[in-house]
């Protein structure tokens, strides 16, 4: 007597039960990653906003008042800080001009040495 071929799919009810178990496993995997990594939580939060942005939270509006100076003194301080930034630039211009003058006096083959800045750690 020839063996009967087993049916390819188990009954529907069994497949539903198996699927439920799979869902439990999937959810446990998520919970496990959430507990182990704060970064994963951020990434899940981004995904819930429709974004795959990695490494930081999806940009959200800041709390009111956080981008504007809180007092006139803060505003003045910001203006002073920015003026210092502008001065920093002017000093760099001066340095570049001096380098250009030095380079003009040297033979044409000599090039300015690379300023210290270090390799970009990528």
């Amino acid at each position, binding site marked *: 007597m020839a063996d009967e071929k087993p049916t390819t799919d188990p009954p*529907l*009810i069994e*497949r*539903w039960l198996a*699927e439920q178990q*799979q*869902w439990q496993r*999937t959810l446990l*995997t*998520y919970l496990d*990653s959430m507990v182990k990594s704060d970064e*994963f939580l951020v*990434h*899940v939060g*981004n*995904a*819930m*906003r*429709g*974004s*795959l*942005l*990695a*490494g*930081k939270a*999806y*940009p*959200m*509006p*800041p709390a009111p008042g956080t*981008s*504007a*100076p809180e007092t006139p003194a803060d505003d003045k*301080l*910001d*203006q002073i*800080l*920015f003026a210092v*930034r*502008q001065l*920093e*630039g002017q000093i*760099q*211009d001066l340095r*570049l001009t001096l*380098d*250009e003058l030095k*380079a003009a006096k040297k033979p*044409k*083959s*000599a*090039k*300015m040495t*690379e*300023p210290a*800045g*270090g*390799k*970009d750690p*990528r």
Partner: protein
Amino acid sequence: MTPAEPEPAPPPDQERELEALLALSQRGREKLERLHEVLTTPGHYGQGATPAAVVYRENKLRLLRLLDANGRPRSGPPVLFVPAPVSRYFIIDLLPGRSFAGHVGEAGFDVYIADFGTPTREDRFADLTYYVEGLVRRCVRTVLALTGAPQINLVGYCLGGTLSLLYTALYPETVRRLVLLTTTVDGDVEGGIPWVAHRLGLAGESYDEPRLVPAAEVKSWFEMLAPGSNSLVGRVNDLWDRLDDAPERLREVRTMASWVDDVVPAPGRLLAELYRKFGPGANGMMKRTAAVGDKRLDFAAVNMPVLSVSAEKDTIAPPAGVDAVQRIVPQAEVLRLPGGHVGIVAGRAATALWKRTVEFLGPGESA
């Protein structure tokens, strides 16, 4: 009642419905599993792809010099990439094997990238003069000093193209060739970010009392211009659909999303000045009334070879507003490529732009 009695099979219609629901459940679960895999696998996000050395720093700006495979700077003709200061620089150096700047470097050029960094509160006072006469000019001077070259090739992207064009009009003797990528010149052509405020009847940013425009707000302007991404539901639906893709493809999508969604705050004074001078109605480039600080711009001085590239489906820099550069710089070669604002620079078909740019820049080191 007999306990061993088998349950009756559901009627055929009900069974079909349950089968369909089961398939739906499996598909949803598989998508979530794929999402988990993508979110927990390391990838290339939030930084440039090519090894680089920082050769100049000022405020938040870093000037990067790309290095070759042996970690050495190249000695070909210098090329400076100027990205938009309202987004991160690494879109032009996105992925190993998919980097515009890396491609230009491999063609024998000594490539530099201006990374404007992330402005903080005091930078809200930064204006066009600070960017053009300050940061861009000092980047160019640094490159010229480092290389000993008399001139530089400039490649500006989006608002970085605007800064490059304005710089070139002021210091044409230092620029050998100029490439403008999706750079709006005609502010009266409808579309793009200035038109968002204009259409909404908003006054725009204040020049005298500028704020640091939060990243979320800058992001919302871009979203208004990108159909499908301007609502939470739309974005979540897009992502859900994408989760059918293979994890490798999703990782690429994630790299791109990590640029698109990582906008930076913008200096309000710079935006106010750009809007007042070049926005709808003012249109200072086309009307030739533009100035940086007290220096009037003379576009006739931009007499070197210029390549301007627009994207057919660009909602941020509408192609007609980009191609208009020929009306102020008649020798400019205008190229319109299929694709969108970001896709032509870093998308899967971006090599068309990269190749054309290298051809335009001329022979590199090995030639």
